[in-house]
């Protein structure tokens, strides 16, 4: 599958440049507005779940509350602690903010994926995709950028020259590095079945609800990905990075004014982009929901023309945004050792084992082996592996107990 944007093949003239510029501006604007609305959405939904009202004064239904908060933060005094490393302290918010924005570039935001079109639409007489860029290493860019975002948080805590931010950033680094492994492993399951790294290609391979990676990878990678993504985002119940009760404000304690706003913005933007990534990877991105049960058939056409894909994308996105707020309203924060246990002893082995099973099935399909035998053998191997792991964990726990160390 050819992944490059057809817009950039052939002559590059003024129209092409203008289309690209338009896309950049639209993605940037939509990103900012979406983040603003996300903050409002989260406050409103969590207020609803706690029998409160939430912001309702600024603008219709309080929608402009975030804007008001942003303006307030912008005009506040910008403090830099005496013992801070001034250059790194100033750099850190941008390290967190810029990657959050860049991920938007590789997400297919719409387009026509029916009949194997590959999401190509025609604007101003040019064929193009409804995404800013479609690099062939799309998903790797995501992983790279989320790794850079760790630097933002780590450097923020380190350069503050203060104790609690440092603790927060140490936690953040350990947490994000740990969960990145599980994240990448469940991602690999998707890539194995799609056979491409390009986000557009991954979406293209999921036409029809039955072909969504959610179903073809067997649901488990999806669950692991959602959990690991929550931990990557430092959202509750994995928000140890900014555990208010323990660490004052976490890594951003010493930040104020617009620098704090940038961290805040990055956090919420990451929530949206990660939801968008989940939708792209597992739920077919802008692919419509198709129903084909018995005699009932529906191809998911909402009658909106070229906006069809975008509307479906937004609908799916909203489900995940609501889910994240729901998590926050429901789950208490994990303890640090629980977090590490979940990451290293449950999620990573599970996603690795599942990946091996999927790889065996894929290989069996290519080689023409008996599918049932392949599944049986690989599941048996998985079970043996799980038992051995559990035994190892138990033995080491007993040894530690004997030595007198708790964790």
């Amino acid at each position, binding site marked *: 599958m050819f992944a490059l944007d057809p817009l950039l093949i052939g002559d590059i003239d003024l129209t092409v440049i203008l289309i690209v510029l338009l896309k950049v501006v639209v993605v940037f604007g939509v990103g900012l507005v979406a983040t603003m609305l996300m903050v409002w959405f989260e406050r409103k*939904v969590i207020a*609803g*779940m*706690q*029998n*409160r*009202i939430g912001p309702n004064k600024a603008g219709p239904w309080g929608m402009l509350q975030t804007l008001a908060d942003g303006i307030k933060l912008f005009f506040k005094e910008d403090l830099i602690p005496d013992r801070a490393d001034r250059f790194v302290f100033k750099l850190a918010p941008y390290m967190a903010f810029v990657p959050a924005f860049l991920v938007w570039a590789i997400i297919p935001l719409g387009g026509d994926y029916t009949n194997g079109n590959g999401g190509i639409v025609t604007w101003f007489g040019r064929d193009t995709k409804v995404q800013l860029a479609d690099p062939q290493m799309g998903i790797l860019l995501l992983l790279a950028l989320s790794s850079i975002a760790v630097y933002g948080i780590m450097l923020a805590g380190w350069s503050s020259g203060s104790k609690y931010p440092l603790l927060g950033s140490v936690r953040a680094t350990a947490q994000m590095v740990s969960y990145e492994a599980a994240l990448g492993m469940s991602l690999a399951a998707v890539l194995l079945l799609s056979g491409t790294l390009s986000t557009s290609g991954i979406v293209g391979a999921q036409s029809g609800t039955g072909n969504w990676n959610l179903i073809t990878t067997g649901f488990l990678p999806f669950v692991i990905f959602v959990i690991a993504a929550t931990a990557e985002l430092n959202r509750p119940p994995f928000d140890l990075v900014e555990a208010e009760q323990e660490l004052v404000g976490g890594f951003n304690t010493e930040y104020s004014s617009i620098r704090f706003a940038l961290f805040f913005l990055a956090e919420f933007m990451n929530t949206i982009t990660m939801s968008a990534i989940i939708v792209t990877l597992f739920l077919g991105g802008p692919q419509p929901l198709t129903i084909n049960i018995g005699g009932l058939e529906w191809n998911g056409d909402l009658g909106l023309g070229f906006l069809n894909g975008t509307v479906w994308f937004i609908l799916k996105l909203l489900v995940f945004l609501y889910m994240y707020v*729901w998590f926050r*309203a*429901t*789950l208490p924060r994990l303890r640090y050792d629980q977090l590490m246990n979940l990451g290293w002893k449950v999620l990573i082995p599970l996603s690795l084992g599942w990946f091996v099973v999927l790889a065996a099935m894929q290989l069996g399909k290519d080689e023409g082996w008996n599918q049932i035998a392949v599944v049986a053998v690989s599941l048996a191997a998985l079970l043996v592996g799980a038992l051995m792991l559990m035994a190892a964990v138990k033995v080491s726990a007993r040894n530690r107990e004997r030595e007198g160390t708790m964790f």
Partner: protein
Amino acid sequence: MGYLEGFGVTLRQHRLFGGKRVTTEYSGGRRAKKGKDDSHDEKQHKPERLHGRHVLNRYEDGMEKCIGCELCAGVCPAKCIYVRGRDNDPENPTSPGERFGWIYEINYLRCIHCDLCVEACPTEAITESKLFEFSFTNRKDAIYTKDELVVDDHGMPQHLPWEDWRPGEEQNTSGWMRATSPGGDERFVGEIGWSNELGFGLRAPEAKQAEADAPKTVRTISRGEGH
């Protein structure tokens, strides 16, 4: 699976799925007075003995009750009351007795509405109304002087521009002070231990507990609730 049950609990609380709001809205004050927003302008019911902004009471003959003894200022934990007394003019006295409150100021940026001043007052001069909806916008307005605190010629609290009074709200200016048997002793329930007030005369005591619990009351309190 305890976790999953929790998800159900939070979801049921959301209004989309049948949850209820317990927050009530109030947007009164100056904004409501200007007629800009009257959509949520209902005040909520307040208890009889709520501690609101103070009033300085007068006797039925129009004399001020305050004798300038400064006990309220002395007892105030927030140090928000400033009082200076002065000898009454024998020809034209302000209060019955020797002295009267000449300067009386309360700083509402400091007041914590603890009502210790009301307890300390030997003449029931200072009491609290139920009004707490007053929002001044500068520090000068926050300091209420004697002119603003003393009740008017009908015994009603004065209405300052930034205060949100509603009809009927002036009636209860001494709810806490008239609370019978604050110590819980049954012998004092329903006993009158206060003097006349301008505009109200001698106020009636609260009902005894047996009367309060009688079935004639509209509001029913189920067993196990409260107390």
